[in-house]
């Protein structure tokens, strides 16, 4: 790693002030950023650790929504949200491995927007609201392509609020070495329709599969997908799987997610 200083502010306000320095970089749980720093793929002069900020920790629910502080780690989401939003708890319990889940945070995952990360699929399919230090952003506006979000420089994800669907499930086909999704599909059924978000598959990052949403809104059954096809155009092709293979997986994972939704 190149040398840098590290600061651990105790409040969001102090963190935002520290991030005003253009060579400063926010550090969540570090499960992506630290390996990136080790590989010398980033060279910030200063890291601003967000893990000591009490106001970004914790989970609360009201009026059919679940609010998760941006600094909350995956293990906490897995163990504390099962009763109110089981599909999200299950997703969190399968991110990375147990040690990664004890450090990695939802805010870090959402801010990084890795094209194969799990949480972006949950946020997009649930129609979540991303709260930052200065505004609320709808998930549909927030995710803007691979590693790209609506966040401005120095803006921090302080919380993510999920509307709780009637039924939901996340089905992940893991890339066995990294545990990231080769393809992951999150299906969420609300009273006014179904939302389907796909991660791992596209060069555009997490995205909705609107044809499946229409079909499933009319008939919430895996059979409703039978006549749909997924185009391989612009899907990721790498040594783990071709674009055509991923296209096939999108449909299969969606069907399984619908069948398992509860």
């Amino acid at each position, binding site marked *: 790693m190149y040398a840098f200083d590290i600061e651990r502010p105790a409040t969001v306000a102090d963190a935002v002030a520290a991030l005003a320095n253009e060579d400063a970089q926010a550090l969540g749980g570090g499960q992506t950023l630290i390996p990136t720093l080790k590989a010398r793929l980033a060279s910030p002069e200063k*890291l601003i650790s967000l893990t000591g900020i009490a106001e970004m920790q914790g989970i609360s629910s009201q009026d059919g929504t679940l609010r998760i502080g941006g600094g909350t780690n995956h293990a906490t989401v897995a163990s504390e949200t099962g009763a109110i939003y089981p599909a999200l708890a299950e997703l969190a319990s399968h991110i990375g491995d147990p040690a990664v889940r004890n*450090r990695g945070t939802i805010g870090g995952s959402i801010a990084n927007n890795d094209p194969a990360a799990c949480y972006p699929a949950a946020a997009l399919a649930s129609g979540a609201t991303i709260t930052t230090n200065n505004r609320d952003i709808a998930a549909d506006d927030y995710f803007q392509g691979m590693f790209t979000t609506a966040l401005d420089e120095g803006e921090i994800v302080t919380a993510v609020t999920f509307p709780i669907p009637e039924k939901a499930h996340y089905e992940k086909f893991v890339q066995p070495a990294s545990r990231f999704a080769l393809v992951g599909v999150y299906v969420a059924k609300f009273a006014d329709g179904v939302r389907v978000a796909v991660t791992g598959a596209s060069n555009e990052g997490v995205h909705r599969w609107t044809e499946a949403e229409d079909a499933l809104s009319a008939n919430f059954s895996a059979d409703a997908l039978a006549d749909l096809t997924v185009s391989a155009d612009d899907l990721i092709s790498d040594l783990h799987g071709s674009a055509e293979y991923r296209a096939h997986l999108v449909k299969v994972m969606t069907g399984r997610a619908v069948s398992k939704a509860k």
Partner: protein
Amino acid sequence: MTKVTMTINGKEVSGDVEGRTLLSSFLREDLRMTGTHIGCDTSQCGACTVHVNGKAVKSCTMFAAEAEGAQVSTIEGQANADGSLNVIQQAFQDHHGLQCGFCTPGMVMTTAALLKINPKPSEQEVREHLEGNICRCTGYHNIVKAILAASGQDVSTIAAE
């Protein structure tokens, strides 16, 4: 350099660290506690697993500065007070749960964390919990057996896969 202070295996320690000093480097190079191993550079292998405030973490994927004020447990603190092996360590020895032994400190720390939250895990649960701990001798079967034995379960009927 920044001064950090933490409690490691019940003893308060402090040292001067750079921002980029990993917790694993602080343990191994500054404190000469070399029981915690570094097996990879990609956060995948788990040989460096320690507990921070009771939770298993990869000490190579956390900065020493982030452990300021924390309670840290390492493999050096696992033996019984009289120096004898604890239940998990003894089970690894009894069931040949190590070959070259390089991954073992991480395996033992991960096991201790698992048994704290799930005192009687099933074989499947043990295997899933080991997702982040790699044994390049590929001796997983006896590691799983040792962990089940350490949890007090009968392992005499577990067949090799």
